[in-house]
């Protein structure tokens, strides 16, 4: 097996680092991930660090464009600065709990079909307009009215029936179907509240450089088109999320957002000090940053579902649970992790370990090649030509499809390819444009997709595993109708167990969110999505 590994990886990535160092770093990463649940996310700021007032944070967003419309920006990297431009009704802590922000309190009914928010009365938008129930309603209504253009935001909002404003500072959301995920959705910058002047704009005007007015700690001051924009501090900001240590105006004077296209140039800029904070890092840079004395790379996986292969149950072979289990058993995840970057960690369930609802089901993710071969024999798949198993003219040959953002994982996928070859299974893989990928998934023309839903919520599995198993669908519905955290967590564990035992999903490793920053950058507060709130961030002056 070792020989195959070398072959497979040697083809894709000729130069590799020392395995011993990698093992050391991987185990360090594992140890850190173990503590992740208890960590407060304040990496980069020691308990006695004193915030510095003033300064500019230089941030690089991957794939950013001219638009700063938070409702149209669902990508993690684009969200980081926008989180400081708009406030949300509630703040979602990393442990999954919620804290007051624009709403001082809120109530959810028993089946999660009615949410009542009581708003702060002292909040204004940067254009002077007042934040009240009518402004919140207008902000949401603008998204509903634009339908398809905010398809993703509207999907998170769910089956909204109506928004009512019984008093000037009370806003009520009524749903025609339970949506226990709404509180999490409402906490995201995507559903951040914009000023009535912005809500009144047509969609295309919101996409222009400075179209968005929020109530956030920063104001959009200058647009450089596709190249980026500048946010400046709002001096009269007094309504940060409750968990923020800094309850006044932001520490930073400015946030400079630079949409640098190339990952390696951005990484070099971070090393040289031209950037303070960077999103999206190539695996080689990840490994280097992990051992850098000047740069910190976050080691918490992005909350959501673990990375791996999601099976199409309509494909011959994958319709049989024995085959799916065999494929999962044949994956030696330690070997995969050796090829992955130094900070990726082993999966513990169908959720990433950083998801507040994640159970620890590591015992269900095993490697046993002998058992895998036995299961395939039992299922009637016999070795055929070229060593690929066959049955009734069908071959155990599978296609994995993914979007271009997964390309950096290809060397790791090649490891699985060679491991499966040893049990007589062929794997082909390649990236498709997002449009083609979605089309293939809709038409069922694939064997595996790269499962990677990200949302700090129990409901994150539904988008990948919905419609595969009636029992699972029932649990997903129960999750949506259950507003209680502990009860949702129990349901999430049941869902994850079904996904793993039925092997609908073959997890590889947890998705490390590649946010890296210079040690002079301090990010004391992260929300559950692992997006930092930059209102209390600061940069040490040189």
């Amino acid at each position, binding site marked *: 097996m070792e020989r195959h590994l070398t072959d497979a990886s040697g083809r894709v990535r000729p130069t590799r680092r020392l395995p011993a160092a990698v093992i050391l770093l991987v185990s360090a990463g594992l140890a850190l991930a173990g503590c992740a649940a208890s960590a407060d996310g304040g990496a980069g700021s020691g308990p006695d660090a004193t915030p510095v007032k003033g300064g500019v944070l230089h941030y690089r967003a991957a794939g950013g464009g001219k638009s700063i419309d938070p409702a149209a920006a669902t990508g993690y*990297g684009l969200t980081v600065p926008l989180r400081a431009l708009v406030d949300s009704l509630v703040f979602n802590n990393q442990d999954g709990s919620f804290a007051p922000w624009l709403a001082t309190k809120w109530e959810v009914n028993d089946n999660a079909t009615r949410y009542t928010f009581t708003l702060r009365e002292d909040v204004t938008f940067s254009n002077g307009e007042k934040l009240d129930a009518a402004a919140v309603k207008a902000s949401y209504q603008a998204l509903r009215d634009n339908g398809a253009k905010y398809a993703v935001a509207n999907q998170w909002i769910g089956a909204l029936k109506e928004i009512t404003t019984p008093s000037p500072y009370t806003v009520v959301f009524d749903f025609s179907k339970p949506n226990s995920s709404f509180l999490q959705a409402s906490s995201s910058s995507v559903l951040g509240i914009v000023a009535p002047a912005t809500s009144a704009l047509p969609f295309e005007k919101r996409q222009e450089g400075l179209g968005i007015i929020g109530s956030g700690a920063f104001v959009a001051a200058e647009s450089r088109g596709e190249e*980026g924009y500048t946010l400046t501090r709002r001096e009269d900001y007094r309504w940060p999320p409750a968990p923020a240590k800094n309850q006044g105006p932001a520490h930073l004077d400015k946030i400079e957002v630079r949409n640098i296209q190339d990952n390696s140039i951005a990484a070099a800029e971070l090393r040289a000090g031209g950037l303070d904070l960077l999103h999206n890092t190539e695996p080689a840079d990840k490994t280097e940053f992990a051992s850098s004395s000047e740069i910190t790379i976050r080691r918490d996986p992005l909350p959501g579902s673990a990375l791996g292969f999601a099976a199409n149950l309509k494909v011959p072979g994958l319709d049989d649970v024995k085959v799916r289990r065999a494929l999962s058993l044949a994956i030696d995840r330690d070997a995969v992790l050796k090829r992955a970057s130094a900070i990726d960690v082993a999966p513990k369930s169908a959720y990433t370990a950083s998801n507040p609802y994640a159970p620890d089901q590591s015992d269900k993710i095993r490697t046993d090649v002998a058992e895998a071969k036995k299961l395939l024999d039992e299922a009637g798949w016999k070795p055929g030509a070229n060593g690929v198993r066959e049955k009734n003219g069908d071959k155990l040959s599978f296609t994995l499809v993914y979007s271009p*953002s997964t390309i950096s994982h290809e060397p790791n996928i090649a490891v699985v390819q060679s491991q499966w070859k040893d049990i007589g299974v062929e794997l082909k893989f390649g990236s498709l444009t*997002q*449009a*083609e990928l979605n089309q293939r998934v809709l038409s069922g023309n694939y064997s595996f997709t790269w499962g990677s839903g990200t949302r700090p919520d129990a409901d994150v599995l539904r988008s990948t595993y*919905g419609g595969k198993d009636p029992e699972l669908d029932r649990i997903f519905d129960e999750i949506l109708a259950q507003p209680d955290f502990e009860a949702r967590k129990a349901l999430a564990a049941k869902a994850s167990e079904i996904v793993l035992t039925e092997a609908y999903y073959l997890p590889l490793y947890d998705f490390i969110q590649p946010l890296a920053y210079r040690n002079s950058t301090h990010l004391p507060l992260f929300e559950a999505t692992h997006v930092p709130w930059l209102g209390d961030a600061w940069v040490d002056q040189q």
Partner: protein
Amino acid sequence: MTGSPSSASLPARLARDVATKLAHAVAVVFAAYSATFFLLFVLPGDAVLARIGTTDAIGSNDLAQLDLDALRSEVGLADSLWSQYLHGVTGLLRGDLGRSLITEQPVTTLLGEVLPNTVTLGAVSLAFSVPLGFLLAVLAVNPRSKAVRSFASMVPSAYVSLPVFWVGILFVYLFSITLGWFPSSGSRGAASLVLPVTVLSLLGAAQFAQVLISSLRTELGTTYAAVTAPAKGAGRFHTLYRHCLRNASFPFLAVFGLRVGQLLGGAVVIEMVFSRVGLGRLMVDSVKAVDLTVVLGIVVVLAAVYVAINVLVDIGYVLLDPRLRRHPASATRKEADA
């Protein structure tokens, strides 16, 4: 030698030439538009599918739950292919390129925002690359030292074989990140132009030099340059400069149009490397997003650029070759035969 018959027909001939050229130009733009339109529809997926889902989003989305047909009708993708095509073509005739399927902004506005940047980058690079290309070519054939000549003739081939993005990244590392002389990204101020223009004009110069070197060598081997001119007492440089360069320029002109196209392609890559606002970046983003209207708008602009370059090349022939001014038809035929 009265000259009156030909001069009398000159305005009519000019008018006919201009009309033919215009008709060609319209046909080229129209053909490019139509071909791209139908090619884009063969591509799998559409703008609605392209905007749904990225791996590192902060929230998941469920394809199966979306009413895709409703989304398509909102952005006008639900109509039949023919009605979309007719709508696009009639818009094109009115000078209206439609609106982006993603941001809904008018395509002409989007193009207006990016074109000045790309045109500046392309024009400045071209302005540097032509004289630089000639200089390199002269250096490769004129000096007495064989070492200098072979070195100068090796440089262009070596440079064109390097990928543009690689050279770009190398320049960023060297001159921007390590030395800190120029900004690594952006398009603000003259300083941001230095590195991209250097990469591109070196590329252009190398490509022009390759063609010029080979044609100069041919010219230098012909009787008039190798025997007649030296016999009349002309020096090597005089022969090269006064006699050969003009003749060697014909193959150069012939490939000029193509090379400008390659330069534009290089500009696209360079805009990505240096994170500059420009046509290249708009094109890459729009193709990724299957934003048909924007891609088609860019194709129209590019087709128009090619047409304009070809007109310039034709004018260049006329300026270089006196025969074309006297007997345009026969001279053109002769050129074509050659």
